[in-house]
C-alpha cells in the first residue's frame, strides 16, 4: 500500500508531510523521510496538521496529513481553517474501530469518522482493497490540488488488517 502512495505524493509535488504516527502508516512515513524532496513533521496532536497544511499551502507547498482514525475527532474545529481560506487539504487516515477490531475503545471514534468528516465539509474516499488505494489517492490529490477541495482517504481496516492482541503465554 505504502509503495503505491509515496510515488503518487511525489508525482503531485507534495513537499510537507505532517503526521501523528499510526502502525498502518509506518512504511509510508519511512519512505517520505527518505525522500529528500519531502519534509516530515511529527505532530503532537492531529489538529496541528490542519494548520500546518494551511500554512504550507499559503506558502506555496503541497502537503499531506497522516493520522489514525482516532485522531480525526481532534481536528473538528481546525477543519474549518482550510475551508474558510478556500484552500486544499489532503488527509490520509488509517482506520480502526471497524472491520475485525479487537479493541473496543477504538469503536466510538472510528465509527464516527465518515460522518464527522462529511459534517465538517471534507470529501471522503474509501479504500478497502489493495486495488482501491492508488485510484483513491490519485483522485484525492486531484481534488485537493486542482480543485482546492478538502478531502480524506480512509484506508480501511479490511485493507490494513485488524491489529492482533496476543498476550504472552
Amino acid at each position, binding site marked *: 500500500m505504502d509503495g503505491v502512495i509515496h510515488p503518487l505524493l511525489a508525482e503531485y509535488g507534495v*513537499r*510537507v508531510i505532517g503526521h501523528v504516527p499510526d502502525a498502518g502508516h509506518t512504511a509510508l512515513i519511512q519512505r517520505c523521510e527518505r525522500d529528500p524532496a519531502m*519534509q516530515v*513533521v*511529527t*505532530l*503532537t*496532536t492531529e*489538529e*496541528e496538521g*490542519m*494548520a*500546518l*497544511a*494551511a*500554512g*504550507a*499551502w*499559503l*506558502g*506555496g*507547498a503541497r*502537503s499531506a496529513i497522516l493520522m489514525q482514525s482516532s485522531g480525526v475527532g481532534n481536528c473538528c*474545529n*481546525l477543519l*474549518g*481553517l482550510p475551508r*474558510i*481560506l*478556500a*484552500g486544499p487539504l489532503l488527509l490520509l487516515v488509517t482506520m480502526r474501530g471497524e472491520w475485525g477490531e479487537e479493541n473496543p475503545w477504538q469503536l466510538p471514534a472510528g465509527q464516527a469518522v465518515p460522518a464527522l468528516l462529511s459534517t465538517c465539509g471534507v470529501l471522503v474516499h474509501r479504500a478497502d482493497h489493495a486495488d482501491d488505494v492508488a485510484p483513491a489517492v490519485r483522485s484525492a490529490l486531484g481534488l485537493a490540488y486542482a480543485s482546492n477541495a478538502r478531502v480524506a482517504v480512509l484506508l480501511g481496516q479490511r485493507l490494513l488488517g485488524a491489529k492482533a492482541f496476543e498476550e504472552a503465554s
Partner: protein
Amino acid sequence: MLDRRAVVRTLLADRGDLVCVAGLGGTAWDVAAAGGHDLDLPLWGAMGAAAMVGLGIALAQPERPVLVVTGDGEQLMALGALATIAGAAPANLTVAVLDNERYGETGAQVTHTALGTDLAAVAAGCGIADARTVRDDAGVAELRDAVHARRGPCFAAVKISPDRPPLVLPPRDGALLARRLRAALGVE
C-alpha cells in the same frame, strides 16, 4: 508595561519580505493597526492554529522570515505546537506571544500565565533554544532583529499591558486574505 501596539509596530518595522501571521483577537487588530500588508495573515478564528500556520509557511518559504504574533490565550491552547516547532526546527520562524495574562476578547478573564505558567520556560522545555521573555523596549528591538536574523526557531513571551486599544479590523474574508498572501508570495 509595554504597549501592545508599539510592540507590534516595532516588530513589523522595515519588514522587507517578512510574512506575518496574527492570532485571532487582539493581535490581529494590532497587526491591522500597524497598517496592514499583503504579507499579513490576520486570523479571525482557528484558535490555537497561529503558530502552526506560521510553521507551514516557514517550511514552504525557507528564505523568508516568518513572524507569528499571537496572544497568550491562543498559544496556551496549542502548547504542543511548540514541541512540534522545536522538532521541525525552522531557522526562519519566530513566535512572539503578546502576554497580557488575560483573555482580552471575552472579558479579561485571567489566563494560565497569570497563574504561574511561564511560556518561555515551556518553549525552552520543548527544545526551542532561543526562548526569551521580553519586558522592555530594548528587548523588543532585539526581538525584531532576531526575526530577520533567521537563526531560529525563536520564541518570545512579550509581557504587555492589559490595556485594550481601539479596534482596528483587518479584512474578514479568509479566501481573500489567503489569495492576497499567496499572490504577494508569487505562488497563486
